[in-house]
Structures are given as C-alpha cells and as structure tokens.
C-alpha cells in the first residue's frame, strides 16, 4: 500500500487500467494536446446529448502521470453538464493527485485538462 507520493496506488491503478480509454467514432468534438518538451500526447473525445457530456474518452502516448490524469479527469467530467465541465480547473486536477506535484511534472498532469478545455471550445464553436 502506498497512499502518499506521486505514484500512490490510486494513480498507478489509473495508469495501469485507464478508464474511458479509446477513440470515439463520430465524436462531437476532439482535441489533441501535446507537450513538445517531452513528447507526451493526449487526445480527448467528447459525445454530448442535450447539455450533458454522455461520453468523455481519451487516447494517449504519454508518461504515467499524464495517462493517469486523463483517466481520472475523464471519469470526473463524464456525465457533467458542458458548463460544469468547462469550469474544471487546475486545482481540480491537482486534487485528483492528492494536492501537490512539483512544477516540472505539473505540465504532465495538466495536459489532459488543456485538451478537454479545447475540445469543449470546439463544441461551443459548433453551437453545441
């Protein structure tokens, strides 16, 4: 059991068995986030019905922190109203990791949030 530190059990579990993993065919919005400094890539796919996010999925080629973050974030966003999901911020993501991440790794943890935000803007552009 390891309930503290960056690679706590919860994070490792999401890394090993990511939730909501896989592309959505015919997604209502898609956005890819890249961290060019380390090669991390994550793509977020959204499906909406009315004002609700019925599916939030991702694919990634990334470090463990980025992947675990995407897994936890999609879990958090799924089922939320679009406006609620748009209000998710840095603190919400850091809280998923138990609060503290050193500044160098914060970029890894926040990459999926950035991709989610741009996917949501994509939705807005198409009037959804």
């Amino acid at each position, binding site marked *: 059991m390891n309930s503290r*530190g*960056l*690679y706590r059990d919860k994070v*490792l579990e999401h*890394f090993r068995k990511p939730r909501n993993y896989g592309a959505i065919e015919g997604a209502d919005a898609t956005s890819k986030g890249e961290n060019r*400094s*380390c*090669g*991390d890539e994550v793509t977020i796919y959204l499906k909406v019905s009315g004002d609700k996010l019925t599916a939030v999925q991702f694919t990634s080629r*990334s*470090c*463990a*922190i980025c992947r675990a973050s995407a897994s936890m974030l999609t879990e958090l966003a799924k089922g939320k109203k679009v406006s609620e999901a748009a209000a998710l911020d840095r603190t919400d993501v850091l809280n998923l990791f138990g609060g503290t991440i*050193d500044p*160098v*790794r914060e970029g*890894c943890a926040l990459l999926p949030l950035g991709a989610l935000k741009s996917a949501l803007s994509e939705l807005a552009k198409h009037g959804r």
Partner: protein
Amino acid sequence: MSELDPQKIRGDFPILERNINGKPLAFLDNAATSQKPKQVLEAIQDFYFKHNSNVLRSDNALSFEASELYFSSRHKIASFLGAEDEEVVFTKGATDSLNALSVALADRYAKKGGRLITSILEHHSNLLPWRTRARKNGGEIVVVRADRGWRIDVEKLEEELERGSELVTITHVSNVLGTINDVKDISRRAHRHGALVVLDSAQGVPHMPVDVRDMDVDFLAFSGHKMLGPTGIGVLFAKKQLLSSMEPWQLGGGMVKSVEPEGELLEDPPYRFEAGTPHVAGVVGLGAAVEYLERLGMGSVRKHEEDLVRHAFDVLRDDDIEIYGPRDPDEVCGIISFNVKGVHPHDVSSFLDQDGVMIRAGYHCAQPLVNSLGASAVARASFYIYNTLEEIDRLAASVRRAKGILS
C-alpha cells in the same frame, strides 16, 4: 595522483546529510548544478561579514580589502585555466558568456556571406544566441553532425572549414552524453583555416584538467555553480590580443577611464568588459571553489568520475535499459543518459526521487541532440566528487523498481 575519498569530501557538504522522502539524499544531478562545500559558503559569508564594499572605486580600507579579494580570486581562477588574469572576464555564467560573445563577434559571422560552424552536440545556449543573431543580420549556421562515438565528426568539420568559416563554436563535453571532444585537434583545424574557436566548457572545466593554452581555444565559457561555486557567477576567457580589440557588450560604470562630451576612453581588459558593480561575493566564492578543486587535483577528480561511470555501466547493464553514447568510461565525463523500456523518462526521474535518488529527465536544453538519439526525452544521471559507488547501486536498484512498477 591521489585517489579521492568521497566519504571524507562529503563531510564538507552539509546538504548531503539530508534525508529526502525518508531516504538519504543521493544527488546525481550534478550536470544541472553541483552542491557547495562549507569552504565556499564560508568564504562568501566571510566576505559579507568582514570585507564587503564596492571594488576599484572608493579609497577606503574596506574597498581595498574587497578589491584585493577580487584580484586574488581572479588570479586563482586564471591560473586554474592556465590563463593570464586579464584574460578572465566575469559574467553571470556560461549562458551569459556565450550571449556576450555572440554580440561581440557579430561582425565576423552575423552578416551576408558569414558562416558559423557549430555542432549537433550543443546545449541550446551555444546555439540560440548565434542562430538568432545570424538569422536577423544574415549569415549561415552550419551544424556539424557527431561521429559514431558521439563526438564532433572532424572529417565533416574539416569539409565545412574548407568551404570557409570565420568562427567555430562547440561544446567541450556533451551535457547529455558526457562525450569529450578533442578540442586541441579542432582548434588546430579551425586555425589552419583562419577561424576562431569558441569553447563551451560548462561541463568540462568542473570535471577535468583544462589548460586554455594547450587546447589553444580563443574563447572559453563556463559557470561557477556547476563546479562548487555559487550561482550567478561565470567566466569568459578570451585570448589577450582578441580581447583588446573587442568592443564591450555592456557599458556603464567601472569600464571607462574617462568620459568627455565628445567620447570616452575605455578601460583595459578585463575591466572594459565588466560594466557595473561586479558580483564580488560570487567571484570570491568561485575562487574558493577553485581552491577546493585544486587541493583535490583535477586529475583525481577526473579519475573518480571515471570509476563512477564504469560502475554505473556495470550495474545498469540490462536488456530493458538503453544507455546512449559510448560505453567506455574513458570517453565519458561523469554523465550517463538512458531510457527504460516502456517507462517515460520523467516517470523514471520522479520515481527515483521518491527513493531519494535525484536525477533529471527531459531534453536537457539540447533538443537537436536528444532528437537525433531517436528520443524525445532521456533520463540523465550525472556525478561529481562526493558521489559514491553505493549511491550508484541505489540508482540501479531504483531504476529496476521503476521498471517493475511502471512498465
């Protein structure tokens, strides 16, 4: 040449007694910065406690003392490099030295028809200042590839020199792979074609005996903080005859003999290039660092790091660990970069950190080189005088645990 006793050396470094995440600190990120011994910290404190005043300006007792310390530190540092005192200009660090040179030498390369030769092995600080200026004012930047041993390919260099060049700027030691260029050979080739040589020795001077006359470089840059000294102080060495014909890149107090309405009479080097109140405490600290290293002997420092690298090659041998660059400890200067199959290097680094083992992951401000290794990032362990074989065993054990848990 006596052998270093890292256990004894560690007694001079209070920070190494710390525990991190409940584990003893194993600091293997020395290519980023080194730790500082008590002797350096005390020299800085002693300066501020007893001698602090501005240098070369005021005619009071404290200013004399501060100036005296400033002179004697410059002398120690110059002798350490085999240079004369007036050939040593103090800067903020290697980056600052290289940026200053890119301005001072702009007439040679940043112009239509100018050709500056550099290499794929460079740190961004020895690429971007030159490239940016050349792109703005005209002039071509030629990047010479590495040979099979990840040193500058001298055959290619020779070909480029034959096409004509005014300036060659290269690294002494790769900050990613630790490979050591044959600077003497490169200087000889460049000079034969009339090109000047700039050496980025940020990873060289701290780790091996360096003699600017023997290498015959025209300019050399390094930082104090990678060699036991404080941050914010570095050196630009330049040959006397070049320095005396160069224009200062900064102007202000302390660098002029007189200022008249119609013009000014500049100070002689090195003061001409040190406008403003210098970082006196930093210079004093760097002087103490040089004294510390000289007492150990730079030959012994080099030998100790070779032993550490040899041991690291042994204990990291594993089908799932890819080590970049040559495997011969003779060819490597205290740096090993690697990747673990299936584990992102940033995860390796963060995982090791939880075991108290500090390394760095990323492209190490040398993206063209790291990309040419076929990687977007690598994990890097880098060693210094206080590191032990046991710490390298801990590195290897932690890397294997990371592999088990994260791949």
